[in-house]
């Protein structure tokens, strides 16, 4: 091999040249991914007609594609926590329908939260947030976990400073809000925009409602028990679940005492209203993806759906605030509890499993964006 002048120059400076080339490539690919990925304009919220249009989007925070993009990054952003270890997604994980599999969750200070992490799905229709409904909008809700010392434990001011010192966020805030100013309000708004896109509407139950899925006998029987109240005089067996959990979304924004305790440790909305009738009343949560969101109830006391159904069937605790929908409902004439048969309990659980939406938990639009960008890169590299 003949060695010429240029080759020598190249060999001598090889390290440097490669470094420059590498830098160029990364800069270019970073530039193109940002450019490619961020679409702008109004975000189309797509959902089935039977979900209804009573949606909750504040006038001052319309959903845009760029806002959702930013909101997703922030939802997965650990810089929003005191020691850079927690993001919203730590307690709201997509594969668990945005719960974390724990009875109570650990915050940055290793102290447990007071209540069970809630699944995030179809929040577009929700008007009262948290187990006690104390937040009136997603925008208001988002502040709480960020500044709560037992959750992410960092003031909005510090979060604003941390994000302002990054290479990417100021430009993104400009794209969404018109200038680079980062504020706590803007952080909450973007996160809320992303949360509104978390629409779950492709479970087997949704498909059944569209005549696109034929339930098994067991699922159908469970569905009937779930939907009907018991009427032993007429020979109708039922579990009356739909009275509180019914409708295509399996969510009605009601607050009830479902008989977990006679003297509740956590009094629920009574602590907000001071009314004895509200003692132990909590939000009737959505049952969407319920098979994925164990443990159950506001304190995560039940590990399995079997325990939940046993509770409603045989172990309701009497108290003055116990919901009337759960009083005197029995499959036995003159009975006090539902008293379901073992096969009926299994049927109800088969129906609850129909509410699992695997499209939702695998939807790439909702996943950790840091991972998808990495994935995209490795994909395009392998081409």
């Amino acid at each position, binding site marked *: 091999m003949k060695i010429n002048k240029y080759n020598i120059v190249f060999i001598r400076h090889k390290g440097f040249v490669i470094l420059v080339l590498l830098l160029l490539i990364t800069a270019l690919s970073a530039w193109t991914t940002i450019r490619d990925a961020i679409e702008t304009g109004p975000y189309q919220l797509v959902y089935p007609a039977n979900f209804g249009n009573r949606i909750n989007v504040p006038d001052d925070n319309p959903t845009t594609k760029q806002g959702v993009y930013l909101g997703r990054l922030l939802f997965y952003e650990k810089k929003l926590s005191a020691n850079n270890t927690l993001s919203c997604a730590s307690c709201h994980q997509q594969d668990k329908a945005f719960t974390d599999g724990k009875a109570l969750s650990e915050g940055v200070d290793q*102290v447990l939260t*007071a209540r069970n992490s809630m699944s995030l799905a179809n929040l577009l229709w929700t008007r*009262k947030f948290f187990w006690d*409904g104390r937040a009136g909008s997603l925008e208001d809700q988002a502040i709480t976990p960020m500044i709560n010392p037992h959750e992410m434990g960092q003031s909005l001011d510090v979060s604003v400073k941390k994000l302002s010192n990054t290479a990417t966020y100021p430009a993104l805030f400009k794209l969404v809000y018109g200038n680079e100013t980062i504020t706590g309000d803007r952080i909450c708004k973007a996160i809320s925009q992303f949360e509104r896109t978390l629409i779950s509407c492709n479970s087997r139950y949704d498909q059944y409602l569209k005549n696109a899925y034929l339930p098994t006998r067991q699922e159908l029987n469970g569905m009937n028990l779930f939907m009907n109240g018991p009427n032993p005089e007429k020979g109708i067996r039922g579990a009356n679940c739909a009275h509180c959990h019914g409708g295509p979304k399996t969510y*009605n*924004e*009601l*607050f*009830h005492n479902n008989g977990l305790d006679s003297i509740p*440790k*956590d*009094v629920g909305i*009574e*602590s907000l*209203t*001071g*009314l*004895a*009738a*509200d003692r132990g*009343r909590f939000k009737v949560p959505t049952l969407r993806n319920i098979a994925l969101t164990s443990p159950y109830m506001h304190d995560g006391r039940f590990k399995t759906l079997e325990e939940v159904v046993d509770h409603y069937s045989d172990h309701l605790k009497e108290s*003055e605030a116990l*919901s*009337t929908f759960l*009083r005197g409902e029995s499959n036995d004439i003159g009975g006090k509890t539902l008293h379901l048969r073992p096969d009926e309990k299994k049927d109800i659980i088969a129906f609850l499993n129909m509410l699992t939406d695997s499209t939702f938990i695998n939807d790439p639009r909702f996943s950790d964006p840091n991972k998808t960008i990495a994935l995209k890169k490795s994909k395009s590299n392998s081409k």
Partner: protein
Amino acid sequence: MKKYTFIIIALFAFFINAYLTKAQPTTKDASVKVTGEVTLPLDLKLADLQQFKQTEVTRKDRDGKDHTYSGVILSEILQKAGVTLGKDLRGENLTKFVQVTASDGYQVVFALAELDKDFTDRMIILADKVDGKPLLPADGPFRIIVQDEKKPARCIKQVSGIKVQFAK
């Protein structure tokens, strides 16, 4: 020394925590808030209801038996709050509706005209008694009773709010 600071901090955290999570609520009396398209918002307690003329309505409950409910005609309460009824219930005011909310979050609506004496003789009352006795805690202390309506679904129990709104 370190040990003591730790104990003090732990105790402090414990009390703050207990205070935040278990602030023992002082039991209050239920009331009905009248809001929205009103000139005078109201917050009615049981005693306030006695200031109005009392009316009785008899209807069947879920037990299939007739019961006599007593309370105040809803439109009289709305009139007190300055809602456009009677001669003012015309034009765009006919697009108003009344949204009633219960303490468990359940909601129903009535068109404003459904409540007006000039439109209908059917009585809709805010009841506080059944057969002469206070409503049961699970039904009351306030419940809407709709005369002659076949289904009891709008006889909403544990009423906590009445809001008058324009249909958009």
